[in-house]
């Protein structure tokens, strides 16, 4: 049996949250294995009703199967919890729909290993190719950029990116506290509350391989209100603002 716990010094885990991604998840796992061989891959199956779990196992990933649907945040946090319990130093999250290019994983890992930050965001807007973003999402990104700037005290170019790497310090934090529904933006504010740092590195984004995004046009308004409220509540929890 191939040990799930990596024996190399980096102790990196690739985390792939997936919900009904049978058409894409297998290919994503194989691509990740090609990009970072010998690195354990954990697919967190958010109680899919299709064969996501089987496809991931066939492709060579280990699967953490949730007993009922938790949503993206709960799904990612489950992976963070397991990674933290197993003693991983770094976790890089890659979406199960194939939008993230696994060849960028070493870029994210290198930035984490520099030790200047607790979280690295793979950004499509830092010399990347943001052209694969829909107009609705692009408008949302512009809005959240403007909103987050005064809160974070610095610009963030791709606040909705799910291509994220964390070190063990952030892993400990997110194992205990992680936004449950639309986590990316709120996670930045949670990070800021603890005075943790993040950097953005350029990454390639592609159209999703199969399936449809969970954030439809109709859900966008709910998404905006939910995230705004979540950010507001997190701002209220700030102990002391960074000077």
């Amino acid at each position, binding site marked *: *049996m191939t040990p*799930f716990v990596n024996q190399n010094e980096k102790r990196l885990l690739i985390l792939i949250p997936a919900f009904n991604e049978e058409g894409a998840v297998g290919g994503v796992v194989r691509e990740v294995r090609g990009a970072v061989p010998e690195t354990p891959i954990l697919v*967190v199956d958010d109680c899919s009703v299709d064969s996501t779990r089987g496809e991931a196992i066939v492709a060579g990933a*280990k*699967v*953490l*199967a*949730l*007993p*009922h649907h*938790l949503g993206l945040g*709960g799904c990612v*946090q*489950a992976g963070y*919890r*397991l990674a933290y*319990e197993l003693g991983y130093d770094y976790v890089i999250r890659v979406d199960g729909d194939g939008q993230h290019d696994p060849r960028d994983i070493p870029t994210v890992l290198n930035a984490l290993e520099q030790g200047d930050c607790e979280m690295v965001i793979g950004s499509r807007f830092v010399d990347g190719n943001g052209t694969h973003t829909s107009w609705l999402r692009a408008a949302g990104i512009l809005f959240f950029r403007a909103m987050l700037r005064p809160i974070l005290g610095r610009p963030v170019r791709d606040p909705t990116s799910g291509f994220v790497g964390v070190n063990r310090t952030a892993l400990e934090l997110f194992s205990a506290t992680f936004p*449950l529904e639309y986590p990316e933006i709120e996670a930045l504010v949670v990070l800021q509350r603890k005075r943790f740092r993040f950097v953005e590195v350029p990454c390639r984004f592609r159209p999703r391989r199969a399936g449809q995004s969970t954030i439809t046009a109709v859900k966008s308004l709910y998404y905006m209100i939910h995230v705004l409220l979540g950010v507001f509540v997190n701002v209220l929890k700030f102990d002391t603002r960074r000077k």
Partner: protein
Amino acid sequence: MDPLFDIVAIFSLVLIVWVLSSVRRAHIRVEYSVSWLLAGAVLLVLSRWRTLDGWIAAGLGISDSFIALAMIAGAAFLVVLYRLSLRISGLKDSSITLAQQVAILEFRLEALNEKIQTPAAR
């Protein structure tokens, strides 16, 4: 305004009977029925005891006693709904934590089984 008070009384009785019936059939747990039963009882008393309505309306500075009753009814249901929202939020948090822990335990159990069944690992 009397028919309105009668309607509130009937509504209160229906609510009380409905909740008691749900409790009897185990559709609602007893601890969650208390808020609804209290709200129903308060509305029933207020809809029948007009003097008390008058006192409350005077205390609130409202000329119409039915408006005072409607305000109390609204407030009572808001309190009940808020209590239930608190409870649901707590239960959802517990459910998420529990689901994550179950998944992690199953994962570790499977890993352990694989380790035991692999001769090389012995």
